[in-house]
């Protein structure tokens, strides 16, 4: 299967069929931190990815202080 990853953008190949849970395990990714997308639909951890499938593993966790503004007061 072909796997499209982000941060940095790259492509990997893993032998299928393989369960999504196992693929995430191979890549040491927590299922809470990504979405797995195949043909514009979401794929759950229990599903199998076939050898000729292409999937995207999209991270969902943003960093940066924009997610944690240091607000002591909302006045400046």
């Amino acid at each position, binding site marked *: 299967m072909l796997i499209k990853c982000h941060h940095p953008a790259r492509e990997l190949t893993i032998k299928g069929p393989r369960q999504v849970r196992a693929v995430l395990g191979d890549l040491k990714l927590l299922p809470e*931190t990504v979405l797995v997308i195949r043909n514009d639909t979401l794929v759950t951890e229990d599903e199998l990815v076939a050898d000729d499938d292409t999937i995207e593993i*999209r991270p969902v*966790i943003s960093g*940066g*202080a924009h997610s944690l503004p240091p607000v002591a007061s909302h*006045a*400046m």
Partner: protein
Amino acid sequence: MRCKRCHAAPVAIKLPRHHTALCAACFDRYVVDQVERAIKHYRMFRRDEPVLVAVSGGKDSLGLWDLLQRMGYQTTGVHVQQGIGGYSGASEAKTRAFAEAKGLPLIVYDLNKEYGGGVTAIAETSRRSACSACGTVKRYAFNKIGRELGFPVVATGHNLDDEAARLLGNLLRWQVDYLAKQSPALPASHAKLIRKVKPLFRLTEQEVAAYAVLRKIDYVIDECPMSHDANSLQYKAALNQLEHQSPGTKQFFYLEFLRRQPIVGAESTAEAVVLNECARCGEPTTGELCGHCRLIAPLAQTHQTESGGRNNGRADPSIVSNIPMSVDWTA
């Protein structure tokens, strides 16, 4: 596997924290319910009030904007063009494309035009981190633009992961003042401050991203190049590790904090703080000069000197107080 709600369609997403798994249609209903519940519980805004939505072009803010307009709220987007290279260009382009496609009004506030420099220049001249400069300028812009254009409230796309990570950070450093102010809805505690609300606080970051994907929202997936702020990512990673082992940990941690805030005496004490008006710009502040004016004074000074300023290199207060608002209405 079939959806646990309608028992018909295939599962699109598992929600272990709710012991359920939903199809795309039932998940959509779940997301709308959670947001409506957040808005109602905190009386964030009504359907007859104009809401300013802070939109960065990422999944959270575009997802929020999409939700609010679908739910029948009157929304206008405000996007701050930060001037951080290709990332900011893509962010503005995706935000504009979304607004145009939905026929929604958008205000673009360009830091280069307003201050003669973007986040990087403001950070360098003020010797602050990019994120601290960026956060200060954005909060200032949202409040000022909102108030001047008659919006009683500004909504941001902060999700459960953002809020739980922030709570963890505040607790690890015992930032008691910050704990008191951490709320999904900050009241307008001064005539010049508008309400600040976070309607997505009940949804995890993954749920918001799933919503954006299912709605086919074209958002910026790339991260801001300044976002290597290790702390927030570490806190989120730690919380997700705990969540993985024990689903529901994140929501319990944050929602229970909100429930117990009055009991632990960490409830907002905004009323107790006396606010003055900034000597330069007139915006509310606890000091004499507001944080925003202290931040951008060095950049204003540079411009003054470079352009043969007659002020002996001292910042001219008028530069700061007369920030022109180049409001650009799209659609």
